[in-house]
Each structure stands twice: as C-alpha cells, then as structure tokens.
C-alpha cells in the first residue's frame, strides 16, 4: 500500500502554508535553504539545554552568577548564546524568600536563545490569563507548593526585554560537576513553574 501520508487530503492550514510559501519562493522573497536552516537550528540546536548550562555555571561560579544577575545579556553571550528574542536578557534569581515565574499575558514572549521555542501551555490562554491573578494556584497545578511567607513575583513580558529564572540549586548537589548539574535543570524551572530536585 502507498503511504497514507500521500493520500491524506491536505488540511486548510496546510494548504494555506503551502500556498504562501510557494508564492514567496516564486517571487524570490524567501529562500528555501534559509527556511530549512532556521527550522533545523531551532528544532535541534537551540533549546533549554542552553539555559541549563547558564544556570549550572552560575551555581558553580559566584563571579559568573553576579555578572548574570547584573547584566544577563552579556553573561549569557559569554557561553555563546544570543540572538532574536534574547537581545536584552534579565535573569531573576529564585531563593527561599522569593519565587519568580514568567509569563507574557499579551502574546507569548519567551527567551529563545536560552530556552528555545515555548511549549504550547506557555502560549495558551489558560496559563496567560491565570498566572498573574492566581500564581500560587497555577504553581500548585505544576506541583509547586510555596510557603505562605515566600514572596511571589510574576514577570509579565510586555516589552522586548526577555526574562529567565535562575532556579535554586537543589540540596544534596554539593560536589557535583557543572555538567551533572546542568542535567538537573529543566525548562519549567527556568520559567519558574517548578522547583528542582537532586
């Protein structure tokens, strides 16, 4: 039997995308190889592993951490991460006293160079609507219970500044290598909806 992928009718959105792309290619406005290269880069090379390396470095190198919290853009670029949707980076530190969590209520702004492209839930109406008005309730749904005395700061990305959370280093990780520490760091902890465990 022929592959069903070839016989399935195209959906409306697939037709729209093919129509637009083919017109733009034909007019010489876009280049196929450029489109392919960008897809490959953001699907396979840019992602939360970048941010995890930044976090691990900050945990093991106090001077780096200081630079990261003072000038996020430059400190992140030291590790080779930069570019669109990360031109102006601010890194906020989670501590036992203060818990930071990120959102973009107006669209879906997200720090691409360090976290990659955002997950669907981050872009969704339920998260964007509720995390500003009921942050503790939303965090609880992610399994994150905060002490009542902990201060919560919800960062709403309304401008072109992009944020990233520096999560708390889990207890019991003393003596671990930077690489092993990076492997503990998750995307959700760098958005601020979860805490990390060793």
């Amino acid at each position: 039997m022929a592959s069903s992928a070839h016989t399935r009718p195209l959906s409306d959105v697939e037709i729209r995308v093919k129509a637009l792309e083919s017109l733009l290619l034909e007019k010489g406005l876009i280049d196929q190889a450029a489109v392919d290269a960008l897809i490959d880069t953001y699907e396979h090379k840019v992602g939360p592993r970048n941010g995890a390396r930044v976090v691990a470095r900050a945990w093991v190198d106090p001077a780096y951490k200081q630079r990261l919290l003072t000038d996020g853009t430059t400190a992140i670029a030291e590790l080779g991460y930069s570019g669109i949707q990360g031109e102006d980076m601010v890194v906020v530190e989670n501590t036992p006293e203060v818990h930071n969590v990120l959102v973009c209520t107006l669209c879906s702004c997200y720090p691409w160079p360090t976290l990659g492209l955002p997950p669907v839930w981050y872009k969704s109406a339920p998260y964007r609507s509720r995390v500003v008005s009921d942050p503790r309730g939303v965090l609880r749904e992610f399994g994150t219970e905060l002490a009542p005395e902990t201060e919560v700061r919800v960062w709403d990305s309304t401008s072109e500044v992009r944020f990233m959370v520096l999560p708390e280093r889990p207890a019991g990780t003393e003596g671990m290598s930077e690489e092993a520490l990076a492997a503990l760091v998750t995307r959700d902890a760098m958005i601020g909806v979860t805490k990390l465990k060793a």
Partner: protein
Amino acid sequence: MNGVHDLGGMDGMGPIVVEENEPVFHAEWERRVFGMFLPIFACGYFNIDELRHAIEKMGAPAYLNTSYYEHWLHAYETLLVEKGAITAQELAARRAEIAQGAA
C-alpha cells in the same frame, strides 16, 4: 486595543494542559511557518509591532480557537497583502491549485 489577546486576569479560559515530552513542532506546516518568520521579516515589509497587532486584530473567536503558528500565518498573509508583497487574488488562486492538486 482591548482585545481578547490581552488575557491577564481573565477567568474561564479552562485548565492548563501540559504535554509531556512535547516536541518543538507538532506538524510539518508549523515548521514551515516558523522557518519563514525571519526570511519574511528580512524583506522589510513590517516590524514586530505590526506583526503583533495583525494577530490582535484577527478576532476573538479565531484568536482563541487557533494555535500560535496559525496566528503567525494569519499575520504573514494579512500584512504581506496589505503591504503589496502579494495580492489576495494570487494567494487565493494558489490555494485553489494546491487544494485541487492534493484532492
């Protein structure tokens, strides 16, 4: 504008649904829409604020019922026609050709 995109503090949007091990893209058309972003931008027809506004103007039902990359696609189509890079007629004609060819 006081559009539905301005979601902060609204109730009744439903539960937050988290997909475990979510892939970066869910379909090939999402890849193409993402990949066209920078090349289209580089043509200089519009800026990021115009792109966001084109999405905001798509209408509340469409905004809530379509995905992120459909929002982008809507913005590309609208702005590229508005700015004269392509015409609505040639876009419609090309869609019809593709639909027939794929039928």
